[in-house]
């Protein structure tokens, strides 16, 4: 048996290498007519948003998604397949097309008014928006599954998926929210737990390469900005008197805050840097993960120009590194969701301090990764 196993291993390795050697050769042979690849363009196309959803193994067909725009003369709705491949689409008096690479708004839908490109209010269900809805549905479904368990099964121990979800929820609730917020934990737990699961699901969906996933959602600054803004609003609008006093009139020597309000300025600056840090941390981490995997994959095609042997070797190395990076990204997905939740909890808890006791200072966790 061990000999047979060894033989199978050897055979499998041989097949992988052979396929890796042949594929780029075939690819280069078939795409001779096409222009040279532009790595930068491909990377940004993959990281960015789109009006359709790519399908595997085909560059021309995309899953059409609805486009909803408020143009010069009101609302227009149509499917993205109408403006595919640079086609322009006329509905009523308005003409739309996706702006070309050298246009004013590259890759975005524009309305043509008097021969000039004009960007309408764009509420399209783009790839990212669609992925957002998928994530929302998945989170709702998984959380309600746990809630249903608690309603119908009483105090039985949950198992399988429900058990996994519940241990995730209690991990964050008992590990982060309760120790930080104390008695106020139940008040803010719904928001923080929602944020945690939402980010986690979006992160993990982004790692799936084909249809329901693949959108670089949390690597999009709009998504992280909204989440950070909500935390910012909760922190400041629900903040206590003590919190505002600490910002506007902190406990420092008078000369630091009286004729020139140095400390208050720094504190106010800090109020705004916190959501900015939240935004950029999640955005940069997730985008970086996606970018590394794409770059590793593109290396195959860049080196593919140097001949079959080099391309084959690069393929093996790149695929190995890509798999490794994707595995790391699974870990990063969880860590980033956790860190975002933890920092949100921390910021909210700063806003909840009351001056009766010495404000406890939780050790600032500098989880920059």
């Amino acid at each position, binding site marked *: 048996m061990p000999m047979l196993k060894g033989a199978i291993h050897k055979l499998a390795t041989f097949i992988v290498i052979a396929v890796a050697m042949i594929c780029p050769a075939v690819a280069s042979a078939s795409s001779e007519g096409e222009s040279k690849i532009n790595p930068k363009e491909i990377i940004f196309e993959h990281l960015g948003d789109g009006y359709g959803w790519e399908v595997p193994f085909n560059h021309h067909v995309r899953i059409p998604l609805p486009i909803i725009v408020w143009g010069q003369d009101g609302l227009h709705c149509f499917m993205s397949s109408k403006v595919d491949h640079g086609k322009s689409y006329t509905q009523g008096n308005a003409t739309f097309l996706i702006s070309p690479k050298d246009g004013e708004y590259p*890759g975005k839908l524009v309305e043509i008014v008097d021969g000039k490109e004009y960007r309408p209010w764009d*509420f399209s269900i783009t790839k990212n*928006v669609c992925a957002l809805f998928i994530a929302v549905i998945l989170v709702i479904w998984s*959380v*309600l599954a746990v809630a249903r368990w*608690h309603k119908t099964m009483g*105090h039985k121990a949950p198992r399988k998926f429900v058990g996994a979800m519940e241990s995730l929820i209690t991990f964050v609730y008992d590990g982060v929210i309760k120790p930080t917020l104390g008695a106020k934990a139940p008040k803010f737990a719904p928001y923080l737990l929602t944020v945690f699961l939402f980010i986690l699901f979006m992160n993990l969906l982004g790692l799936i390469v084909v249809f329901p996933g693949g959108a670089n959602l949390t690597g999009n*600054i*709009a998504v992280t900005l909204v989440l950070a803004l909500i935390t910012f609003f909760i922190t400041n609008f629900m903040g206590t008197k003590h919190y505002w006093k600490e910002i506007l009139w902190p406990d420092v020597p008078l000369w630091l805050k009286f004729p020139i309000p140095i400390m208050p300025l720094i504190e106010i600056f800090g109020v705004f840097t916190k959501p900015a840090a939240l935004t950029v941390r999640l955005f940069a981490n997730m985008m970086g993960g996606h970018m590394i995997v794409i770059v590793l994959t593109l290396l195959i095609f860049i080196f593919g120009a140097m001949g079959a042997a080099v391309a084959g070797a690069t393929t093996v190395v790149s695929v190995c590194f890509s798999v490794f990076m994707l595995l790391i990204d699974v870990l990063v997905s969880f860590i980033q969701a956790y860190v975002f939740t933890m920092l949100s909890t921390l910021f909210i808890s700063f806003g909840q301090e009351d001056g009766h006791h010495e404000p406890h200072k939780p050790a600032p966790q500098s989880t920059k990764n």
Partner: protein
Amino acid sequence: MELFTPDFGLIFWMFVAFAILFFVLYKWGWPAILKGVESRADLIDKGVEYAQNAKEQLDHAREQADAALAEARKQQADMLRDADRMKTQIIEEAKEAAKKEAAKVMDAAKLSIEQERKEAEKQFRNEVSAFALDIATKVVKGEMADKAQQKKLVDSLLDDMEKQN
């Protein structure tokens, strides 16, 4: 750079999606879960406490049973010892009583023996005196066969009487 300029549409939908998500979970998700988890934790805590108490009680009961058994053994031993003591005491008393009784019987016997002896002595004396009288009579009869003798005796007797008078 395109990557760093947030898209208006996506921000809008993100707000909407998050609002829906939060509302649904706030209404039907989290309260049930947090309450359920909490009450289950309470139940488990109570169960553990109950089990500990039960174990304690069991241990206690065993101790009590052991104590009761030891007590019973002690009582048994005491009772046996008491019975033993009582037995010896009774035997002692019986012996004493028997001794007393025997002494009394002995006394009575002594007394009756004394009486008997006295009676016998008396009877013996009577019999002896009767014998003596008989013998005396016979002797006297023998002596009186001779006239001279008889006269001599009467004379001496008369002399005695004279002397006495």
